[in-house]
């Protein structure tokens, strides 16, 4: 084949690919095509892969539960907003009926725009920036709480923690990542804390830090110098690890490390890397209720698919990703069609009581936001995250102050 023919055939192939029609509604669609948009590479890669585990086990569990066939279409958004946008377009082009994603607030916002523009429902599994559901979109839904809800629940759980353990810490230092998520949490704390008079502590210093900082010596030195009773932290994963080690290096042992709602301290990598040092850290995040029947179903499926892994390490990621797909499948069953508008209406009317995450039934308000999401207090014991609050779902009793606490 000479070059001319080669070039011509490439051009033909390219044109054929470009001309592939879009939006053709398949008559009598038997299955629901869910486009998964997750960061499987880049700095959020680890967490994205964790979410993917929740996605991978969903079709099987949902088939048993609802008799609905779910087909996953996976895409990697590479922890980048631009890629998120083009991947979303691509998935819709290839026939995705509904999109689920994307862990990162920036990427989720971009995908939301595409979804709204194309009239395809988009269910956010995990992303906390409030703006995503404040744009007046009609096709965007979120099963995850906003940072405001997250914070409100988280702070109230802190109050419960102190009550249960009969402690009255007076001062805290607040350290947070300086990114979209961290900033919205910081803003929230600034607004809420003064009004929550039942909480006994005051924040003596606020220290924002760069999420990609390699070295947090200065930040920890500063935090330690303000001599607080405990450390309040909003972090991501890698920085949580660095912070914890820096605390040991600087011989700083406050009453405890508590997060009002952020990733990091309950993730597998945190335990793997820090070993015993990970013990006693507390995170208040939405979690699954280990006693719910759906949780146990999912756990079984998880164990089957990931024999060497343990679900508690992926509780939040797997839980919300699964529930997002569940919402889509449940709506599909009720709507009896995958036509986007009808599907969206069906999602809007969702009321799922049989769920795995702690909280009321999954119901969306007018903005597409779930409102009755609750958080649980998760404390690390023996390299495992355990539910310690609320008492009704607890697997263990909370420990505060931590052993090793030295009043400086």
């Amino acid at each position: 084949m000479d070059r001319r023919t080669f070039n011509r055939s490439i051009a033909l192939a390219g044109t054929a690919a470009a001309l592939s029609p879009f939006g053709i509604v398949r008559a009598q669609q038997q299955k629901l095509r869910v486009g998964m948009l997750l960061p499987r590479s880049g700095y959020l890669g680890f967490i994205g892969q964790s979410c993917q585990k929740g996605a991978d086990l969903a079709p099987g569990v949902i088939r048993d539960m609802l008799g609905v066939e779910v087909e996953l279409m996976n895409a990697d958004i590479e922890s980048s907003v631009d890629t998120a946008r083009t991947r979303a377009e691509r998935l819709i082009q290839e026939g995705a009926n509904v999109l689920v994603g994307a862990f990162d607030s920036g990427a989720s916002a971009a995908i939301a725009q595409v979804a709204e523009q194309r009239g395809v429902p988009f269910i956010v599994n995990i992303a906390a920036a409030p703006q995503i559901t404040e744009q007046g979109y009609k096709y965007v839904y979120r099963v995850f709480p906003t940072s405001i809800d997250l914070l409100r629940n988280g702070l109230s759980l802190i109050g419960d923690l102190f009550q249960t353990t009969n402690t009255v810490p007076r001062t805290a230092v607040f350290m947070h990542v300086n990114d979209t998520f961290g900033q919205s949490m910081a803003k929230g704390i600034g607004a809420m804390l003064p009004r929550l008079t039942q909480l006994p502590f005051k924040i003596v210093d606020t220290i924002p830090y760069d999420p990609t900082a390699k070295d947090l010596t200065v930040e920890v030195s500063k935090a330690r110098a303000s001599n607080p009773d405990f450390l309040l932290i909003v972090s991501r994963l890698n920085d949580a690890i660095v912070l914890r080690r820096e605390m040991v290096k600087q011989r700083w042992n406050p009453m405890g490390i508590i997060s009002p709602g952020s990733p990091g301290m309950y993730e597998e990598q945190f335990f793997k890397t820090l070993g015993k040092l990970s013990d006693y850290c507390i995170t208040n995040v939405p979690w699954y209720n280990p006693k719910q029947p759906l949780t146990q179903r999912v756990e079984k499926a998880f164990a089957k698919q990931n024999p060497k892994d343990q679900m508690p390490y992926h509780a939040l990621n797997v839980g919300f990703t699964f529930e997002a797909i569940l919402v889509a499948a449940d709506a599909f069953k009720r709507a009896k069609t995958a036509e986007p508008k009808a599907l969206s209406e069906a999602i809007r009317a969702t009321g799922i009581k049989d769920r795995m995450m702690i909280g009321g039934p999954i119901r969306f308000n007018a903005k597409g936001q779930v409102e009755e999401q609750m958080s649980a207090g998760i404390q690390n014991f023996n390299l495992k995250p355990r539910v310690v609050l609320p008492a009704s779902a607890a697997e263990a009793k909370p420990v505060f102050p931590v052993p090793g606490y030295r009043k400086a």
Partner: protein
Amino acid sequence: MSRPVAGLLALLALLTAFPLFIGPYVLSVLTLVLFLAYSGQAWNVMMGFAGQLSLGHSLYVGVGAYAAGALFFYYGIGPWAGVWLAVLLCVALGLAIGFLAFRFRISGVYFALLTIAFAEFTRVGFDHIGWLGGPAGMFLRVAQRDTWDFANFRGPPLMYYYTMLALTAAAFILCAWLMRSRAGYYWQAIRENEEAAEALGVNSFYWKMLAIAISSAMTAVSGVFFAFYYNNLFPEQIFHISRSIEILIGPIVGGIGTLFGPILGAAMVTLLAEGLSDALMALGWDIPGFKRVFYGVVLLMVIIFLPRGVWPALARRLGLHA
């Protein structure tokens, strides 16, 4: 009509008619290609014409985007007015950087690093500007997407595509005109031998500053487009060095200093990246990083075997004058 002009008009006609045949995904990719082609053309004015390597062009995209975005966010002022502020600020910044550089005789790698420093400084700086959203970003309200509202620059993706096409065509014409004008000759003289040019009475400082001003002004416009197309601005993404690199890869691969190089380069690079993603997904080789390794290798091949860019070699083959 000469062959090159006929060819260009044919290409323009093709790109104008294209949307009739393609779906929204390809449309979004093409819009991105045109965006990069336009920005690359803008960058090329500074590099190809005035010989100054800027590795921090994301500065202008970002400042332009935030300027127009902020006006819209706080005062509801549309992009047609906002673009003036964007251009003004970017030209001021560009001239400041240029002035500092030439006044203090900074060139070559030092100049490139100066541009990086300014972009990085601004990136971290904007992360701390609360009223522009900080790291949480600025979200612009999208009123509607169905009808073509040119005044507020709101509408379906098709509108954005045609706007970008028009901008790219205009940039091309502008650069062609510049190249053949007196400015073009002075720039060539300065590029070839600055001392000799100075000796002949060419005020190299003035002409270099002019190139920087034009380049930053053009890039500012792409920033405004960015703001109203993507509608969310994050300092981490818009000022990031990877964006600066994204802008200059097209012209370097396509051919610095040529007119068509930036456009060809942007098309090649973007389509390669997207094509690779699709091919890998189809093959099931979904390993993170694989695509970009490929991308890096292709870049390596191009720079080693076609150091002056793809377009000069291609143009010779096609019998065209670059």
